[in-house]
């Protein structure tokens, strides 16, 4: 028997409570009229979702409840849920207004839902497409989002979403073939012509694209037959009607020349005017567009830069050469040294494997010069003769071409961008899913401050340090002499005497008569994560720093590998991890001076740092990996990272860490920590210190306890 439906009064009561009616003044009678007419399971479903949305925003939840009737009529339950969640997503990303319109504009949602359900989305596929094109290109081509697909020869741009085809699989194929085709334009020299001619003539540009497609397809068929097949799949799926038009073109002799291995883009350009057909085929869906201006700008900048770099490199080679030949280097000659290209056959030319010749001497260019040559050949099809003169002294100022160094501290000034930062997901327990690419983390330096802090600390805790040293020395992995071993480095006299006595009395002689040295390796790697939030200001911060100094002293005795990081930040877009000591650094004066300068910053978001450290640990080989957090309270950030949300994200991040074999442990001075830490870390993996003054001693004690 199914449960009874809720009455209107019950529904209003529920909504009043979850939409906090005494503050929000929403009129719950309005949605209740509709909800009461639903079946009980649907009623529960809607009320439950309303409550989940209310966790994000009350007003939004109210609108959801109001529109729920229409939604249930037009979508299935899964879709309704997705619709609600996309509104809360909008809210997180762009605020209340766009979120409200997402709720109100149901039809739009149904349409985009279709696009999203079977479309390919840049954000999701970029991590596949990027290595794919970099593998094809053999260099660091970039990938980015834009309205249309095109390339400027350094970056390949594709739209945020592509949904031309029915299924996700086909749409991914469309993405893949598009990026590969754009790469082919660069690789096989579509831009090695004077594009200016086409710039004010869209019709001619279109025809050029069509002819280039024929040429590039032939190139791809030779070089990447698998990809060529994929192109044909897309063509028959999406442009079956163009096939005849293309066939017609291919019957023309001057066009057949495009299929030849040595055909160049210039040929496409040359023949455009002479071709007379009734119907030119359309540009195919994977071709993107040709953005002449973009190509020209990047092209010029690169050409100039590479020419400068190449000619300066040649002058270095020339200097080396003359130094090698005679012991006293000759003065600079007025004339620039002229190089020649050696072994210039087609095969080596393609691969950029060309040797240089200077005054009849063969020179094999070093790796960076070779890379330059490859790139120049991609642009010109050869090394232009004027490049082969070594640069004169002071002819170029290479600084001009260096990309401006990015200072992580400046990134947040002006418009915000995420270059050089690492992006992590975050767990939303209410919605039970990850916000993708949610937090932006950056590693920053701490300026060392050379003051008396370290000396004072060591002095203050002199007695403690002495006893700590003693206890830790005992722990240190020491050579142990194992006795009565079946084999070993030396003879165990006691065992041998016993054994001989045994044989005398007619027993079988034991073979365990050796001693063996055995070194116990403490293969431990530990990262300390220190809370640098604003709330640590004052003596907590001081106690943390003192603890770190003492810890470092004892860890040096133990020989365990350790790293120390501080963490703080403000909102998900500014999570900052301060490098205090990395695994590779030695504990020296500079590290001490950094510890001395650990200063309270802003808030404590935690999950993102745990995820980052989990990732760092992947490169560390150790049989025990420990992550120890020193903290003064619950995770807490400026935005929504409060209360349960923060606790649950942290818990999830710890769980991820644990799955990768990391043991997390938390040391805190928050008296209330017993309420939430067991939930986050598990009952045995935390310690609450009541007396801050004892922190330095306790931290070392705890470390000893958990690693022995």
């Amino acid at each position, binding site marked *: 028997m199914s449960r009874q439906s809720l009455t209107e009064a019950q529904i209003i009561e529920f909504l009043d409570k979850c939409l906090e009616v005494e503050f929000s003044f929403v009129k719950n009678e309005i949605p209740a009229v509709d909800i009461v007419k639903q079946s009980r399971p649907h009623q529960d479903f809607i009320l439950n979702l309303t409550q989940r949305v209310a966790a994000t925003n009350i007003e939004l939840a109210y609108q959801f409840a109001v529109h729920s009737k229409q939604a249930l009529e037009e979508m299935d339950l899964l879709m309704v849920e997705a619709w609600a969640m996309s509104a809360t997503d909008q809210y997180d990303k762009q605020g209340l207004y766009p979120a409200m319109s997402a709720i109100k504009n149901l039809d739009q949602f149904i349409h985009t839902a279709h696009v999203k359900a079977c479309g390919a989305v840049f954000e999701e596929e970029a*991590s596949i497409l990027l*290595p794919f094109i*970099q*593998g*094809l290109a053999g260099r660091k081509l970039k990938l980015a989002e834009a309205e249309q697909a095109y390339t400027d020869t350094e970056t390949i741009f594709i739209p945020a979403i592509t949904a031309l085809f029915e299924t996700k699989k086909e749409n991914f194929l469309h993405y*893949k073939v598009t990026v590969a085709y754009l790469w082919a334009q660069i690789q096989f020299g579509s831009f090695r012509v004077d594009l200016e001619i086409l710039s004010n003539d869209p019709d001619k540009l279109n025809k050029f694209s069509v002819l280039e497609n024929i040429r590039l397809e032939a190139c791809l068929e030779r070089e990447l037959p*698998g*990809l060529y097949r994929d192109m044909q799949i897309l063509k028959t799926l999406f442009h079956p009607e163009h096939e005849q038009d293309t066939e017609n073109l291919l019957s023309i002799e001057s066009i057949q020349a495009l299929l030849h291995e040595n055909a160049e883009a210039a040929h496409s350009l040359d023949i455009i005017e002479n071709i007379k057909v009734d119907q030119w085929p359309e540009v195919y869906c994977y071709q993107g567009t040709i953005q002449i201006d973009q190509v020209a700008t990047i092209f010029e900048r690169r050409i100039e830069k590479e020419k400068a770099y190449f000619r300066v490199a040649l002058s270095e080679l020339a200097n080396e050469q003359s130094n090698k030949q005679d012991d006293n280097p000759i003065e600079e000659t007025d004339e620039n040294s002229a190089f020649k290209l050696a072994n210039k056959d087609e095969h080596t030319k393609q691969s950029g494997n060309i040797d240089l010749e200077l005054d009849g001497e063969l020179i094999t260019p070093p790796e960076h010069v070779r890379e330059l040559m490859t790139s120049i050949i991609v642009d010109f099809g050869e090394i232009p003769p004027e490049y082969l003169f070594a640069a004169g002294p002071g002819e170029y100022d290479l600084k001009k071409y260096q990309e401006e160094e990015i200072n992580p501290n400046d990134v947040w000034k002006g418009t915000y961008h995420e270059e050089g930062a690492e992006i992590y997901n975050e767990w939303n327990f209410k919605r039970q899913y990850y916000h993708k690419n949610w937090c932006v983390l950056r590693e920053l330096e701490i300026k060392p401050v050379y003051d008396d802090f370290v000396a004072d600390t060591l002095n203050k805790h002199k007695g403690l340090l002495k006893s700590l040293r003693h206890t830790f020395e005992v722990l240190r992995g020491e050579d142990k002499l194992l006795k009565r071993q079946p*084999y070993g480095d030396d003879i165990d006299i006691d065992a041998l005497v016993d054994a001989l006595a045994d044989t005398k009395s007619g027993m079988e*002689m034991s073979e365990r008569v050796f001693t063996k040295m055995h070194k116990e390796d403490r293969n431990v790697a530990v990262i300390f994560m220190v809370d640098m939030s604003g709330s640590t200001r004052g003596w907590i911060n001081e106690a943390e720093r003192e603890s770190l100094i003492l810890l470092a002293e004892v860890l040096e005795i133990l020989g365990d590998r350790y790293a120390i990081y501080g963490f703080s930040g403000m909102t998900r877009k500014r999570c900052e991890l301060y490098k205090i000591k990395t695994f590779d650094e030695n504990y020296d004066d500079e590290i001490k001076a950094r510890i001395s300068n650990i200063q309270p910053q802003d808030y404590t978001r935690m999950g993102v740092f745990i995820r980052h450290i989990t990732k760092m640990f992947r490169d560390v080989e150790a049989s025990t990996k420990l992550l120890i957090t020193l903290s003064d309270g619950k995770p807490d950030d400026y935005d929504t990272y409060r209360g349960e949300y923060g606790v649950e994200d942290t818990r999830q991040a710890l769980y991820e860490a644990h799955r990768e074999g990391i043991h997390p442990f938390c040391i805190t001075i928050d008296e209330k920590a017993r309420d939430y830490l067991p939930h986050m870390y598990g009952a045995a993996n935390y310690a609450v210190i009541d007396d801050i003054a004892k922190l330095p001693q306790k931290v070392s004690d705890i470390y000893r306890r958990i690693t022995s």
Partner: protein
Amino acid sequence: MTMQSKALKPEEYFIKDEPFYQSIGEEIEVFEAAYRQGLPILLKGPTGCGKTRFMEHMAWRLKRPLITVSCHDDLTSSDLVGRFLISGGETVWVDGPLARAVRNGAICYLDEVVEARKDTTVVIHPLADDRRVLPMEKVGELLEATPEFCLTISYNPGYQSVMKDLKQSTRQRFVALEFDYPDAQLEAEIIIKETGIEDKTAQQLVKFAHMTRDLKGSGLDEGASTRLLVHAAKLIVDGIKPVTACKTAITQAITDDSDMLIAINELSSSLF
């Protein structure tokens, strides 16, 4: 064909048939010269680029037995030099592989020497300088190497952590030969000789390897080695589709990252 294998002592084992080794530069000449001059040799290079094969080839060329020791982090100096054992109520000394190689004038190849514990690498020091002796402290002997004896170690500088770097005092005793993947043409020839695969497919395999090697540092720790290409080629020769062979023999061997796996599979399916 008999299915029984013979038990041979390594020092009695001479390689009779020429192992195929495609030389890349002057490594054979340099090795021979170093051998004649009694200098120890260090082979540097990434995994699967032919170091072991080169040693087999040189052992055949120089007509000496080859004793290989794969080093690991538990390897002690006794494992190399020797130890006491009990047999029939008496303690007897048993030579380790290094001592056996010295006594028999063999070529001793210590593979991945940095993996061994630091104190272990030190025992090879007196052997690796002009003294050419192996001190056997436990038995109070000093074993002098004959001119035929040769010490070779290998080392992959690529992914060792700073903690595991080869000590200067060790590395400065050796003549260093650097190995790398051969250039495209040679690498294809190696694959063909090893597996009998057809030329075109070999070329494509090499091209695929280059794609993965270019991704080193942007998501991959190492690109596909020659060894992996040989594996894939063997599968293909046995009738497996090239795309499947690449996926199983190469891609899965170089990464576990799910996006990277897809990306690299897309590369191989573009090629074939």
